[in-house]
């Protein structure tokens, strides 16, 4: 499905852009953080699976290359426009009514902490139709249930085309459970992001 009028209109109206990524998503995420302009106009939240005890490697690399102001989420940070937030390793990130983050160290979901499902679900509850969720390459099914919730709350949901992803399992799960309203290639996703 290529971008259409409905997609473009809802993209423009959205305030919160969430990315879920796991194995094989690093390259596309790195390109995203390098290309998104400083005054992007939305709040961007990255949920990326990674190992604990590998301190701040991704965070540092991303922050050094990002044109948007970027920060690793700390407890009770307020969601701001034109800021890119990255969910810290070893915590789940939740979004609270009132527009701030809270963290949680409870059990891993799909062996993952941060879990994409957890953040997507709470984003759906608080921001519903103001959300855009994009699910990228990954080797498990984290993110599919959360994305379904965003879709049901009126948010715009996009899965990376599985054939175009290094690890197809994650976007494929979101397509299978009906969570993905649009399925786009990397290039199509970039067209949208840099509109």
């Amino acid at each position: 499905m290529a971008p259409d009028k409905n997609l473009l209109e809802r993209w423009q109206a959205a305030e919160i852009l969430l990315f879920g990524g796991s194995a094989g998503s690093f390259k596309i995420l790195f390109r995203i953080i390098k290309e998104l302009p400083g005054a992007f106009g939305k709040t961007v939240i990255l949920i990326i699976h990674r190992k604990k005890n590998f301190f701040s490697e991704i965070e540092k690399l991303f922050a050094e290359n990002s044109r948007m102001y970027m920060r690793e989420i700390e407890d009770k940070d307020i969601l701001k426009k034109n800021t890119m937030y990255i969910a810290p390793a070893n915590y789940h990130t939740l979004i609270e009514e009132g527009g701030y983050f809270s963290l949680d160290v409870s059990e891993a979901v799909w062996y993952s902490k941060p879990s994409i499902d957890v953040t997507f679900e709470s984003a759906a509850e608080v921001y519903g139709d103001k959300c855009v969720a994009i699910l990228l390459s990954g080797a498990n099914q984290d993110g599919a249930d959360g994305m379904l919730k965003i879709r049901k709350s009126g948010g715009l949901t996009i899965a990376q085309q599985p054939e175009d992803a290094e690890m197809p399992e994650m976007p494929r799960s979101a397509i299978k459970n009906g969570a993905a309203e649009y399925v786009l290639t990397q290039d199509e996703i970039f067209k949208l992001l840099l509109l």
Partner: protein
Amino acid sequence: MDTAQGIISQAQVFELIDIIKKVHGFDFAGYTKASLKRRLIRIMLLNKFEFYDLKHVLINDAAFFQGFLEEITVNVTEMFRDPAFYKAVNTQVVPYLSTYQHAKIWSAGCSTGEEVYSMAILMKEAGLGKKSFIYGTDINTEVLREARKGIYSLRNIKSYAENYQYTGLKGSITDHFTILYDAASVHNELKQNTLFSVHNLISDNVFNEFQMISCRNVFIYFETFLQERILELFYKSLCPLGYLCLGSKETIRSDAFKTKFKVINQKENIYQKVGT
């Protein structure tokens, strides 16, 4: 999750908070709502409850509440969680603690005791084993029972061994345990320097004076106003120049407390009490 099970509205969360306070005397009003709601939904799914079932047992089944309390609070913990924190304590706080005849440490929200024993190991390795005492407190009697036993599954100990290596302490984590089949028991010598008891950060008061307080990954479950109330409790519980350790993603935001606590380690959120 499309059935009535596991679905709960914000208003219903407030209704449950009200019931729990009136019937059981625990006040969850200052807890962050998204996390609390997730825990409630989890309990409902585990028990195959709808909202009204949960409400019913919370009012009528006193025995249910202990288990509920255990599930509603997050008890996921590790030994030497965030190894960089222990490294920082070792280099920045331990030298100060060693100047005392006797150093008292409070681990607030200690759950099943992993942090208390990690701290006990750290003190022992620093040669302060006989000169330090660690108090572990939690609101939950069940987890404290586990903490007192000091027996952990061997599988967990294996995963904590990696954390231990990162802290830079010498030897291996298994040096501090007696291993029997698939269980590992903390050495008695470490247990002798610990005491576990019930304490509710929200409703209970100062109970001793400490040289160091560690309260990590507890504030994340509390709203800012509640965090500030507990900071006041910690401030009053610390000796002059005593240390406060928060979780690595928990910072002191309130201006009032920024002047009462000096930042010792920005990254690991270690603070020192200043003023009187």
